[in-house]
């Protein structure tokens, strides 16, 4: 491209301004990537939820229990294929900062309802036979360097006053779904029931059921809630994705917050870059007039201005996204599982780069059109 020399020479005309403008893009794109990753992490539960699964919680709140006796009644509703139940344990491993979710699970039905969370057969058999056994998600096992056979003491915060429960790691599960949660820690519900105070026995935290067909979701959910209406433990049944979405909403309207911050950042970037390009063009209006005088067409002048703003956007965008790609894994590790897995997907990178280029085009367009339309005679008079 024979105009490359001219474009790059103009780009490097004011090096400090170039660095600062590229820096603006880099910071904005870094922030964009980070916000998109956080938004993705919060929304991933809903995205990967099974379409054929329902979650049943106590109508008052998820922290209120449901009777175990509901299980068989629910199983009899037409369209229900399998049902399992979980309890939140809420224990602390070594330090409160080492958070990861711990669930007491029903070993007989867990894998029927959640088949995408895969445990090798021999490990599962050992777990079933071992009352104190536990299964950890691959991410959590890696985080703490656990190996099969390790003894893992977890201090309870809900049951008993800070006593330590000891588990033996029998297996490690992986999620077959990309971005699936591999941070959970499972142990047998029977073990929980055994050690639980009498007043807590016979209850579960929530149910998860698998349907014969996703088409049955509305009917089955209504049937369950109607069945237990006006009882001491009324239920609230919703699809797994709706449950995940409402869980996220407890943190506030994350999506709105992120979109607002993102919009403000990009609007500011647009103004900063647009102003920079306008100044840059105004400074050399005489030179552009000379180019037009010696035969460069209007569209060539527009092309030069747009090429400059696009190059700045491209380099700034790549720099910001590159920094995000380096920083986000470090940040994810530093958050110690407080947030779901932070994944900088190709879709986020592509969207970020496309947005940067769009800002580049828009910011170069107005000064470019101005330069394109200027009258050579007027511009030369100002030189």
């Amino acid at each position, binding site marked *: 491209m024979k105009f490359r020399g001219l474009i790059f020479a103009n780009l490097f005309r004011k090096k400090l301004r170039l660095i600062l403008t590229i820096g603006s893009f880099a910071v904005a794109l870094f922030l964009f990537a980070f916000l998109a990753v956080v938004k993705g992490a919060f929304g991933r539960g809903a995205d990967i939820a099974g379409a054929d699964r329902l979650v049943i919680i106590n109508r008052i709140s998820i922290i209120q229990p449901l009777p175990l006796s509901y299980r068989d009644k629910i199983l009899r509703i037409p369209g229900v294929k399998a049902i399992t139940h979980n309890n939140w344990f809420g224990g602390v491993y070594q330090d409160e900062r080492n958070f990861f979710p711990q669930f007491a699970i029903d070993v007989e039905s867990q894998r029927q309802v959640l088949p995408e969370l895969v445990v090798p057969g021999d490990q599962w058999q050992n777990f079933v036979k071992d009352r104190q056994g536990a299964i950890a998600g691959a991410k959590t096992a890696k985080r703490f360097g656990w190996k099969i056979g390790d003894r893992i003491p977890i201090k309870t915060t809900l049951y008993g006053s800070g006593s330590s429960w000891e588990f033996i790691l029998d297996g490690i599960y992986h999620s077959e779904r990309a971005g699936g949660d591999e941070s959970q820690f499972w142990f047998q519900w029977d073990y929980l029931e055994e050690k639980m105070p009498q007043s807590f026995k016979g209850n579960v935290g929530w149910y998860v059921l698998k349907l014969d067909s996703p088409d049955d979701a509305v009917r089955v959910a209504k049937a369950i809630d109607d069945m237990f209406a006006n009882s001491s433990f009324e239920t609230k049944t919703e699809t797994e994705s709706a449950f995940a979405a409402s869980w996220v909403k407890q943190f506030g309207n994350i999506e709105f917050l992120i979109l607002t911050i993102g919009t403000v950042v990009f609007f500011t970037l647009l103004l900063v870059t647009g102003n920079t390009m306008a100044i840059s063009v105004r400074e050399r209006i005489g*030179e552009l007039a000379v180019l037009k005088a*010696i035969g460069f*067409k209007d569209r060539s002048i527009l092309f030069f201005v747009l090429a400059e703003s696009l190059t700045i956007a491209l380099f700034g965008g790549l720099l910001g996204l590159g920094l995000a790609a380096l920083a986000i894994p470090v940040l994810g590790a530093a958050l110690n599982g407080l947030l779901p897995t932070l994944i900088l997907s190709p879709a986020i990178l592509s969207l970020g780069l496309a947005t940067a280029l769009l800002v580049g085009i828009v910011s170069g367009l107005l000064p470019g059109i101005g330069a394109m339309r200027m009258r050579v005679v007027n511009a030369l008079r100002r030189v």
Partner: protein
Amino acid sequence: MIRVDGTGKTNSLIQVRGLDKTYRRGGEEIQVLQRLNLDVDKGDFVAFMGPSGSGKTTLLNLLGGLDVPTHGSITVAGDEITHMSGSKLTDWRARHVGFIFQMYNLIPVLTAFQNVELPLLLTKLSKSDRRKHVETALGVVGLAERMNHYPRQLSGGQEQRVAIARAIVADPTFLLCDEPTGDLDRKSADEIMDLIHRLVKEFGKTVLMVTHDPVVARRADLTLHLEKGLLVESGEPQGVAAGGAA
């Protein structure tokens, strides 16, 4: 042969007929040029003089296709440029006109070589051919050794020589010089005028030049004065008699 009475031969290189240029400023019409005629042949060197605001630069802009007249016609090498569209006029300028400005108007971030190469970027010449042309042009102006210098590393006279190289590199039909020595000291001005004179005499270039400096104007074949929007022959023509043969 240079004529201003509108009786030049039909195959003059530049033929201007009944040229009017009126500006509107704050509701008031200012007539800068009125019914101006001019004939310039290939190889002629004409200087335009006149007081500030007399329309010298306006005339040069019209001849270079940078501005459009209110009335009248300009024909260059058979092309009537007054009715050309903006895009066509731009193409025409690239082929036919070499501009030399008072302030040189070089691109400061490009080397002398790159500045001179600019008009050639609009042609289909290969990179090596462009290089040959640029080296030749810089050789003509005596700056072959300084082709990699930036304008800030050159003196005013040298910058103007680079600008002249840029003006001639694409071998245009004629050169338009707007106060080419206006920003130079006498010595540098003489060198630039020697160079322009050489372009006319050795290379057969046609040059139309605006100047305030009578010493510079005397280097032209003929000096024309612009007074009240009209061109008037005056002074002692050198080399070419007004309306006569060289």
